[in-house]
């Protein structure tokens, strides 16, 4: 899929955000059933939401890192982290350290209370692990495999009259349309850049102008999207409505069960340690 910003500052090359496109190549992680990856991410997220302790964070982070290693994810896959984010992180660390709290660390003769810092670091680590898990899914999963997996996973919900099949088809088509929509916005953004900036007297007029411009952009985007939707509706009708969405939907195999087993083990160990010792 497209990288979002075609424009780049010539002075310092930044790595762009590349969306929904797996890292080229294949590996055991690439070959896992998409549903397995979704389950693991879901289970780990729930685990971390209930027990955001160091042990669960370390275990899940370890799992993510091992998976990244197995999937041969190069460092270049990470987008460049903007400098202000580093600064913000540093600022947070400094203020959290000043906040004090137990435990106390002896640095030569000085005593530093690092309780606050530890809390801050734990919170930051938690956020990074959550982001990392999501990133691993998009780096190793072909978008075409997501909707069939969701359809399979959602099957139990049919008992509650959730229209799982409809939702899976909508998801498949949304993933198919997403790159077109992104291109649309890239183009809208470019079209806007090509125009002269209106000279406006004051901040209020500028704000107003900005709002109106956003609505203009949105209206143009929606108009084109509606046309696309009309045509797509015709294409669906021409195929006799909805039905299959994948030629050979994947099923979980042995390696998936192994991964799910590891995932379960991580959860059991984490919960046990958290309840027993904290």
């Amino acid at each position: 899929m497209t990288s979002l910003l075609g424009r780049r500052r010539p002075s310092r090359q930044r790595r762009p955000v590349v969306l929904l496109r797996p890292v080229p190549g294949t590996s055991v992680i690439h070959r896992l059933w998409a549903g397995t990856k979704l389950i693991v991410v879901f289970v780990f997220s729930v685990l971390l939401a209930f027990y955001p302790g160091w042990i669960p964070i370390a275990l899940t982070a370890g799992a993510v890192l091992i998976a990244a290693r197995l999937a041969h994810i190069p460092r270049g896959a990470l987008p460049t982290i903007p400098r202000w984010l580093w600064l913000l992180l540093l600022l947070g660390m400094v203020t959290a350290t000043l906040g004090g709290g137990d435990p106390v660390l002896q640095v030569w003769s000085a005593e530093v209370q690092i309780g606050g810092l530890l809390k801050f670091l734990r919170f930051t680590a938690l956020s990074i692990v959550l982001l990392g898990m999501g990133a691993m899914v998009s780096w190793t999963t072909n978008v075409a495999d997501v909707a069939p997996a969701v359809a399979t996973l959602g099957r139990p919900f049919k008992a509650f009259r959730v229209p799982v099949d409809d939702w899976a088809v909508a998801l498949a088509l949304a993933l198919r349309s997403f790159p077109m929509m992104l291109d649309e916005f890239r183009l809208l953004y470019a079209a806007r850049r090509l125009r002269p900036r209106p000279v406006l007297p004051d901040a209020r007029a500028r704000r107003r102008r900005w709002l109106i411009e956003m609505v203009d952009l949105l209206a143009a985007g929606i108009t084109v999207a509606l046309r696309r939707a009309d045509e797509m509706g015709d294409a669906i009708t021409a195929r006799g409505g909805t039905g299959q969405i994948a030629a050979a939907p994947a099923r979980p195999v042995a390696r998936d069960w192994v991964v799910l087993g590891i995932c379960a083990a991580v959860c059991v160990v984490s919960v046990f340690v958290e309840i027993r010792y904290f």
Partner: protein
Amino acid sequence: MTSTRPGAPSRNSPDMASAPTGRSLTPVEMAQAAVMAALAAALAIVSVVVPFAGGLSLLVTVPMGLLGYRYRLRVLLAAAFAAATVSFLIAGISGFMVVLNCAYVGGLTGIIKRRGRGTPTVLAVSVLAGVLNGLMVIGALMVLVRLRTLTFEAMTANFDGVVTAMSKFEPFRQGAQDARAVFGLALQYWPVLLMTYSIFTIMLVSLVGWWALSRVLDRLRGIPDVHKLTTLTESAPVAPVPVRLTDARFRYPGADHDALRPLTLTVEAGEHIAVTGANGSGKTTLMLLLAGRQPTSGSIERPGAVGLGRLGGTAVVMQHPETQVLGSRVADDVVWGMPPGTHPDIDRLLDEVGLSGMAERDTGGLSGGELQRLAVAAALARRPALLIADEITSMVDQRGRESLLAVLSGLTERHRMALVQITHYDNEARIADRTLALSASSDNMVMVAQAAPPAPSVEPAAVGRTPVLELRGVGHEYAHDTPWANTALTDVSFTVNSGDGVLIHGGNGSGKSTLAWIMAGLTTPTTGSCLVGGRPSHECVGEVAVAFQAARLQLLRARVDLEIASAAGFPPSDIRRVVAALAAVGLDGSLARRRVDQLSGGQMRRVVIAGLLARRPKALILDEPLAGLDADSQRGLLRLLTDLRRNTGLTIVVISHDFVGLEELCPRTLHLNRGVLS
């Protein structure tokens, strides 16, 4: 040939009428849900990644609001699920929550709009929604004790740190201590705080969303509905051929002329018929009748049901490659929509349309011609008795066109089916057994007068030519330094002089669009330089104008005069300059007050060019200027551009995969192949 999209569902919208509650989504509902979901997800992501667009996140509610306004709740729910899942795949759990929230608020505003209520209702409902949302968040945090404790402790640590630092300075000490007290109090009463925050934000987002939705709906009134096919409820066994039309005539409801004049025609099994005719002659309408619409008068007889998309029934392939293909992977697209349990021989089908070995490829990377051949394969998978190919070559480049025709030409011999091939190119009809030429209905042609071409206003360009665009060793790599790195251009050097007409010709993926973006300064090349009048192009964006292929996306304002004024940078009240700008592209001044959505494709292109030219650009780049236009509009636009170049000395660069008819406009041609000039 189009009816008007109802602005409100109450005006007998076909979508609402054909959608009984409690049933699964109709094709139209499904497509709308998916596209709006993709739009909402894209908005949410763009608002995070692109610097200027932060506020766009407030508008993620609008696509969902639109769905809530126009369709059943079921559609909204499917779209919300799809959008949330897409953003989950990109931004993780937080993306999921953001989009879900926006769907919640947007859906509510849409439903309120549909009920015809006003701002007070929005306020009241948003307070209620805020309370509900707050209760849910509080409930979740009540359960997730440890997460709550950690978050609060981390916040307290940061806050205490700031307070400690401030307290070192005497003048701030008191304030800092007070702030700590307030902060502590706030954490103690966190549910109250969260509830207030929830109500406030939901109210704000609802009001902004409501305002934006109202404005967008205003703008969407009068957009032509291009949706054509309808699902039929048929009980008879499927048998669409032989089909016999007797004096069949069709008029769209509310139209004042026939879209198809009385026609008598028989399509026998195994026959290959070509249908030709200009725009407005009723070619597409004939397709609709063959696909199951009832004629306004006359009769249409067939032995059984039409069976649109069913096994042994009728298959239709249409014009736009991108929206024809529904699967994300080639093999998936072939079976897309077939009843569960049917397994056609995918490899054989792909072989037949010349896509051998591509079953596992992503459809996103296919060229227009390949996409259309894939759509034909998907049609053949249904072993249709009647295949209708409706202008499937018109959006495809020359090579793609030839390969498509090669696929079509032997179909009726290899399969037991009738083929109706609709085309506006007479030379494509020669592969058919017989040709039916439809004549245009008299009052159905060009609806807006086009003024005479502009008189030469400037002396022919000076002969002493100066370089306008200089490219020296330009190379570009997308996603540089990542695993997805993709070289689009390598060492491209050429110069365009003032008054030149240059065609940059290249196929799909040749890097020609990247080149256009670089010349316009929208993309900074990774290596080499692109100079506009001696300055790097990315430092003078706007001096070189670009008319993109998707003209509609470049028309950002609602009305022609506003659009031209905005693009050119003068006040919209200056009607004289608007009219002059329109005249320069051969459009009548009476178009000035027209809404852009009521323009034809050719007029849209011209209005874009008018806005760009009014700024007196150093050069005009046109990306596929003729794509999607019918033959008449193509000729007219070419004439206009040629005259402009000759009479005003305008420098023109055309980017195209076609060179038919461009010789006069662009005497100089550069061939681009895989990013290299040859």
